[in-house]
């Protein structure tokens, strides 16, 4: 059983060939670096770049593994949430292939795929566990009671974590994407130099908020620019911002585990790349006897392996999507997870 996975929901074009449930034969991810110049994902550019890259990537994947299109048994494609124009490129390609090859098609929810990526690990977490999904577009705490059965415990009420990294990096003129540049700038900084707020951290709910933190960094940056000394303060600003984010995420994640009784926490999304967050989660996890899993980066960030894995999971349960399947922009786990 060979599954072709296709992911084009945001700025990464990705293609994967998965044999049966767990044998990843080929996995290609093309990060569209031209976005860097524009300080973020430009939707129209993203669509064009997906459109140029996708079919050559599928051809390369097949060539690498010595397979031909006729060997594909199932096609899985991300249908949302994401940028509509970008999603449509993947969906149209998937539908055309499904029609031309006479193979079934399964539409995949991108957020669920981030959770199911963990099924590809050699030692996968066993539900129930808690997942923290932190990326440019998502900030979610999800209780995974079983594969396909989710309960959203908390989410950001305003900005996504990755977005706040990007916006703070822009304020500090550090470049894009915000995560790595802030982490680098923070290396020589003092994380306690600026006592930035930890919004909603002591709040009862597991929801989060990052907009007020962004504004606090803005005020401090502006004051420093007026007084002089902004340049020298950048490492401290970056370190203090990062520390505030890590505090909130660690605190809420551990409380999510306590509340749901889970002994395992899985971190997914691009922000999982942040070293401070990982170290803090590891330390707190070992103190609280909670197993913390951060999958390898290629499974953490947007990728097609997770899409293929999700597609085969649902295919085995009998799901097939028609050629009329459409794209959707928003709604974390609402579709097609109908439980």
């Amino acid at each position, binding site marked *: 059983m060979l599954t072709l996975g296709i992911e084009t929901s945001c700025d990464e074009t990705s293609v994967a060939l998965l044999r049966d449930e767990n044998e990843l034969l080929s996995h290609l991810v093309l990060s569209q670096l031209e976005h860097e110049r524009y300080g*973020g*994902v430009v939707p*129209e550019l993203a669509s064009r770049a997906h459109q140029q890259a996708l079919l050559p990537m599928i051809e390369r994947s097949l060539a690498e593994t010595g397979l031909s299109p006729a060997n594909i048994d199932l096609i899985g494609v991300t249908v949302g949430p994401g940028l509509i124009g970008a999603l449509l490129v993947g969906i149209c390609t998937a539908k055309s292939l499904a029609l031309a090859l006479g193979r079934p098609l399964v539409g995949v929810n991108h957020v669920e795929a981030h959770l199911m990526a963990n099924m590809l690990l050699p030692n996968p977490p066993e539900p129930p566990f808690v997942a923290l999904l932190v990326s440019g577009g998502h900030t979610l705490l999800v209780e995974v009671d079983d594969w396909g059965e989710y309960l959203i415990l908390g989410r950001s009420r*305003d900005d996504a974590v990755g977005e706040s990294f990007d916006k703070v990096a822009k304020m500090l003129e550090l470049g894009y994407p915000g995560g790595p540049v802030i982490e680098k700038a923070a290396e020589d900084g003092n994380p306690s130099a600026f006592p930035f707020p930890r919004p909603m951290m002591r709040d009862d709910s597991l929801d989060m908020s990052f907009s007020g933190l962004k504004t606090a960094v803005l005020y401090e940056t502006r004051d420093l620019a007026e007084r002089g000394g902004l340049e020298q303060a950048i490492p401290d600003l970056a370190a203090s911002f990062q520390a505030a984010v890590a505090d909130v995420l660690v605190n809420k994640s551990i409380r999510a585990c306590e509340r749901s009784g889970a002994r395992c926490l899985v971190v997914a999304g691009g922000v999982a790349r942040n070293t401070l967050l990982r170290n803090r989660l590891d330390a707190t996890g070992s103190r609280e006897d909670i197993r913390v899993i951060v999958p390898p980066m290629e499974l953490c960030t947007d990728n097609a392996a997770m899409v293929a894995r999700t597609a085969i999971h649902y295919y085995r349960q009998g799901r097939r999507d028609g050629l009329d399947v459409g794209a959707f922009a*928003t709604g974390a786990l609402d579709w097609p997870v109908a439980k």
Partner: protein
Amino acid sequence: MDMQDHRTTRKWRFTLGGPEQTRELAHRMAAPLRSGGTIAFYGGLGSGKTTFIQALAGELGCRVPVTSPTYTIINRYDCGRIPIVHVDCYRIRHEDELWEIGLAEMFEPGVLVCIEWAEHSGGILPRRRLDIRLESVGRDRRKMEITALGGLWPGLDTLLEKISEDQ
């Protein structure tokens, strides 16, 4: 009923003390919004655009959290008194991109379109609209300038007059 033709322009200026007062003003302004229309927001990071729209949507009966559309560009909420389309042009660099992603089709009658970073939206905005300019002028101090371009929601002008008198 204050029905001006589309060439009439009125302006109001307010000073707000921070997020709480931004929300309060949005709550008050929700009352006359009984039909669709366009509100364009201008102003930098942290000036209160999203805060205003969240409060407005909440007051219009939207019960799901209104989150930043920076990544998705366009979010639509069908849960309140009127459908709300929340747009963020932060990442838009060319007006063409807005046509490509279908923003023009969002200006349907009966839909309230709220556009953040309208500076980047070029000529796609309808001529008849409300412009809200927000500026953060110090810690917890914001300046707001509201411009009504053309006849908009009945009762809105009167309400804004009243709010500016109260200040």
